[in-house]
């Protein structure tokens, strides 16, 4: 089954490659200029311009086709000087935004400016191949499921046919031997099954099957009661750790800074998302519109992306569904494990230096499109690690303090519970 879906996927892929290639060849030379232009554009112009929407400056795909190349060459090279020279068209153009003026770029050569204009004309290169590839992959998984069902159905049919054939053969043999055959009465299906249960061997076999299946289900069920391994609830926003922690390489601490300071790792509030998503709107992959998932962040904050203003009265917090959840009677503290025990846990679980310590318990989060519970979080799981991990007391501020306190106790000096952390809120409250 795997093979068939693989082959189909390959055929699809090569078909896409072929179309993409032919498009590329046709627009070859243009693409080269545009690629260079795109680079300069991203570096120098994106802070004020977008291709298809007005920002500080006008949308370039709308304005550029209406102007002559000679005018644009002068304008982009040094707009302030051009306006100051009193050119009528330039003065007219400068009225677009009375509060800002365009930076001068005297270092840009006419060729570079032409390549920018080529890029403006062509627009963002389409990523057809990638998108279609993902769709094919989704189809394939549905396809293989249907495949399994088909295999089961086909084997049932084959079995039935084989059963018939055996019967026919037996009859033939008996006929050859000259045995008189009494034509079997047509028994109804229900009566046939009823008859089956009169056969002792069959009943024994049936009960055996039943006991084994139910027994194993019961056993598994009891082991897995209250163990949520693999739990992956649907979240209100399709937030992907694979994208943010993987592709974008944002450190866990950027969003879960609580894990290093307190019991709770904490889920970031939406202002943290806005640090990037005020600008990042994933318009490329949504035909120039704001991604609907990012729009959900804006809606929750009452943020208006066009006016760039917040409206407090429209706030509506996002209700993330909690994944990891210990029963309330067990106390687990993140900072004790992430900061104090970092070295011990890294050694115990054999983490690579570039992997965050979180992976020891939460698994490879940077590959999770949707977050799921990786570890069982059972008491056995806690205990097994606590029996095996080796504490490293060197260069560990936590132990330096403890050793100091113990030295004082040894010497019989005065020591208060406060010196042992007895004032930390978390020692008494959770």
């Amino acid at each position, binding site marked *: 089954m795997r093979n068939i879906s693989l082959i189909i996927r390959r055929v699809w892929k090569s078909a896409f490659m072929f179309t993409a290639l032919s498009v590329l060849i046709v627009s070859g030379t243009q693409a080269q200029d545009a690629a260079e232009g795109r680079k300069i554009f*991203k*570096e120098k112009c*994106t*802070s004020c311009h977008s291709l298809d929407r007005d920002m500080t400056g006008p949308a370039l795909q709308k304005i550029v086709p209406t102007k002559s190349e000679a005018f644009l060459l002068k304008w982009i090279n040094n707009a302030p000087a051009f306006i100051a020279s009193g050119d009528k068209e330039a003065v007219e153009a400068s009225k677009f935004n009375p509060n800002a003026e365009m930076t001068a770029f005297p270092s840009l050569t006419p060729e570079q400016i032409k390549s920018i204009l080529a890029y403006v004309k062509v627009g963002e290169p389409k990523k057809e191949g990638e998108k279609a590839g993902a769709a094919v992959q989704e189809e394939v998984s549905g396809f293989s499921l249907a495949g399994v069902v088909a295999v*089961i159905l086909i084997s049932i049919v084959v*079995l039935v046919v*084989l*059963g018939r054939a*055996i*019967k026919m053969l*037996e009859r033939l043999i*008996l006929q050859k031997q000259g*045995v008189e055959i*009494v034509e079997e009465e047509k028994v109804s299906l229900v009566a046939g099954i009823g008859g*089956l249960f009169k*056969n002792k061997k*069959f009943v024994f*076999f*049936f009960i055996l*099957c*039943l006991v084994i*299946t139910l027994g194993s*289900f019961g056993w*598994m*069920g009891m082991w*897995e*009661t*209250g*163990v*949520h391994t*693999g*739990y*992956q*609830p*649907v979240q209100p926003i399709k937030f992907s750790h694979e994208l943010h922690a993987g*592709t*974008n*390489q*944002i*450190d866990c*601490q*950027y969003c879960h*800074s609580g894990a290093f300071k307190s019991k*709770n790792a*904490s*889920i970031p509030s939406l*202002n*943290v998302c*806005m*640090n*990037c998503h*005020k*600008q*990042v709107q994933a318009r490329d992959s949504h035909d120039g519109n704001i991604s609907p998932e990012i729009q959900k962040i804006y809606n929750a904050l009452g943020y208006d992306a066009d006016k760039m203003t917040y409206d407090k009265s429209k706030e509506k*917090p996002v209700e993330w569904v*909690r994944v990891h*959840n210990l*029963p*309330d*009677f067990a106390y687990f503290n993140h900072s004790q494990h992430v900061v104090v025990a970092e070295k011990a846990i890294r050694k115990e679980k054999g983490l690579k230096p570039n992997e965050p310590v979180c992976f020891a318990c939460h698994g490879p989060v940077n590959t999770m499109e949707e977050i799921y519970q990786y570890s069982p979080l059972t008491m056995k799981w806690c205990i097994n690690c606590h029996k095996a991990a080796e504490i490293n007391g060197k260069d560990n501020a936590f132990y330096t303090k403890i050793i100091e306190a113990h030295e004082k106790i040894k010497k019989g000096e005065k020591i208060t519970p406060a010196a042992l952390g007895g004032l930390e809120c978390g020692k008494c409250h959770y």
Partner: protein
Amino acid sequence: MKGSILAMNKTGIVYVAFFALTVAVSLSSCRDKRSTGLEYARNMYDPIAYNPDQPNKNFANGQTAQTPPPNTDPVGFVKYEYANTKEGYEAAGKNLVNPLPLTEQNLLQGKHYFTVFCAPCHGDKGDGKGHLVQIEKFTGVPAYHGDAASSRGGMMKDLTAGKIYHTIMYGLNNMGSHASQLSPKERWEVVMYVQKLQKIQ
């Protein structure tokens, strides 16, 4: 005749065994990842006291985590005196000095926090070419050194400690405020490290 019955039973047995197997396989393979599965005593998991990130019917906005009432400060909270205006920025730049001594330890801390909270945009060396800029998801980040200019006037390499602290507090245009992620001490450690990056030639 006898043979024929036996043959029929054999196939019957095969059918039933096959059926049982299919059911077992299909049931065991489709454990629903969207549910927590079987649970004994669910109420043990639901806290009696409210967790900070839980809904809470007792407050008007339905959240447990509340902002302090107006005109109150949490114990130990240091208020930031400067407003998010051009004047506030200039005043902070003139009056604020880093309260932390310039030590190896503080710089090391500052470097860590800078790498986590600022480097995705500003780059490890403060050259404005962090990972997000390199993969073209984020643009328009100025370098801290060289001939880059601040959009509020002056050179980036001449920004004073107070101006950098002010920027962390309130953000600026496309840069958001990082005050909720860094404590005051951590902010000053970052400022110390940024001032080291400003000296890069």
